[in-house]
């Protein structure tokens, strides 16, 4: 690892004030490996690990608030999460492996917007609101491409607000990394039916409108029989071709509805 400086933030205000040209360190499960490989080389890290106001889940009227530094394990084992947004706890329990879930955080995942991460699919399907230190951003406007988001430099995610609804999610994990080869999140909520796909899109998480149209008429796995996504724009690598992933999107969408 190369040299950098480190500040242990004590509050959101302290973290934002201390950032300078640096980067926020949440759980570090992506940022630290990325820095080891020199794919990112911040000279300064502002560590959010001790910022108590960024931890925890709570209910606020019609929404479930998951604060940014809440670890995956905390979401996966939260009775409140399982009651307010059933399915979200299962999704959190599928991220990485147990040791990664003990460190990784929702804010870190959303800020990084890895095209194969699980949380972006949940946020987009549920039409979550990403709350930062300066504003509120709808998930519809937040995910802007591969590893890219609507966040400005120095802007810090403080929480994610999920409207209460049931989340159906199925994922085909890469057997080594546990990242999604394809993950499909489906929600029938106040906003109609929303289907979000992670793991396969060349531009990151996206909505599958053909499936949404079918499910609007008949919200069941059967309504998606024989469907697959368009292979154009799908990622293609040694783990799976674009055609393979496009097929898997259909399989995972049906599985999301039949098994969860």
């Amino acid at each position, binding site marked *: *690892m*190369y*040299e*950098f*400086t*480190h500040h*242990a933030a004590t509050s959101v205000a302290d973290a934002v004030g201390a950032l300078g040209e640096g980067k926020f*360190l949440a759980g*570090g*499960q992506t940022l*630290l*490996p990325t820095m*080891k490989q020199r794919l990112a080389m911040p000279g300064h*890290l502002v*560590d959010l*690990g*001790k910022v108590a106001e960024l931890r925890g889940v709570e209910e606020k009227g019609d929404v479930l608030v998951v604060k940014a530094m809440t670890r995956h*394990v905390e979401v996966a084992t939260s009775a409140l999460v399982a009651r307010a947004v059933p399915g979200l706890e299962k999704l959190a329990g599928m991220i*990485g*492996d*147990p*040791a*990664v879930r*003990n*460190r990784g955080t929702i804010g870190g995942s959303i800020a990084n917007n890895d095209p194969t991460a699980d949380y972006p699919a949940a946020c987009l399907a549920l039409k979550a609101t990403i709350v930062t230190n300066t504003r509120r951003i709808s998930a519809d406007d937040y995910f802007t491409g591969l590893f890219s988001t609507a966040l400005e430099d120095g802007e810090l995610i403080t929480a994610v607000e999920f409207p209460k609804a049931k989340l159906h999610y199925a994922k085909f994990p890469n057997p*080594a*990394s*546990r990242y999604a080869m394809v993950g499909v999140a489906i929600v029938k909520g106040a906003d109609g039916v929303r289907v979000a796909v992670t793991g396969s899109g060349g531009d990151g998480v996206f909505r599958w409108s053909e499936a949404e149209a079918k499910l609007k008429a008949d919200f069941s796995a059967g309504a998606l029989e024989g469907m697959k996504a368009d292979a154009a724009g799908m990622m293609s690598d040694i783990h799976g071709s674009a055609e393979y992933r496009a097929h898997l999107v259909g399989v995972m969408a049906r599985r999301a509805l039949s098994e969860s």
Partner: protein
Amino acid sequence: MAKVSMVVNGKPVSGEVEPRTLLVHFLRETLRLTGTHVGCDTSQCGACVVHVDGAAIKSCTTLAVSCEGAHVTTIEGLAQGDRLHPMQEAFRDNHGLQCGFCTPGMIMTAVDMVNRKGNRLDETTIRHELEGNICRCTGYHNIVKAVAAGAANMPAKAAAE
């Protein structure tokens, strides 16, 4: 350099580290606790698993400075004097290793598993929970047997910490 203090295997320790020092390097090089291994260094293999404040984490993907004030348990902290921890004993009895490189991480993950899931662990649960620990020798068969046996032999509550 930054000063970092933590409690490792029940003993208060402190040291001067660079911010870039990973927890595993603080344990191995500063404290000379070399039972914790670095395998892949990319947080996939799990050879570096230790417990921080009671939860299993990958010490190659955690900064030492992030663990200021934490309680850390390493593989060296499991045995009581000459008496092996039940999970260590089970790995020996079931020959749950070949080269032994992944074993400290396997055992720390297994103890964490029992802490969270209890003493009766079926094969499916064990295999699922071992997703973050890679062994290139055994094919996992004896590791899974060892974890089940060690879990059954651990005290019903409060295992390692």
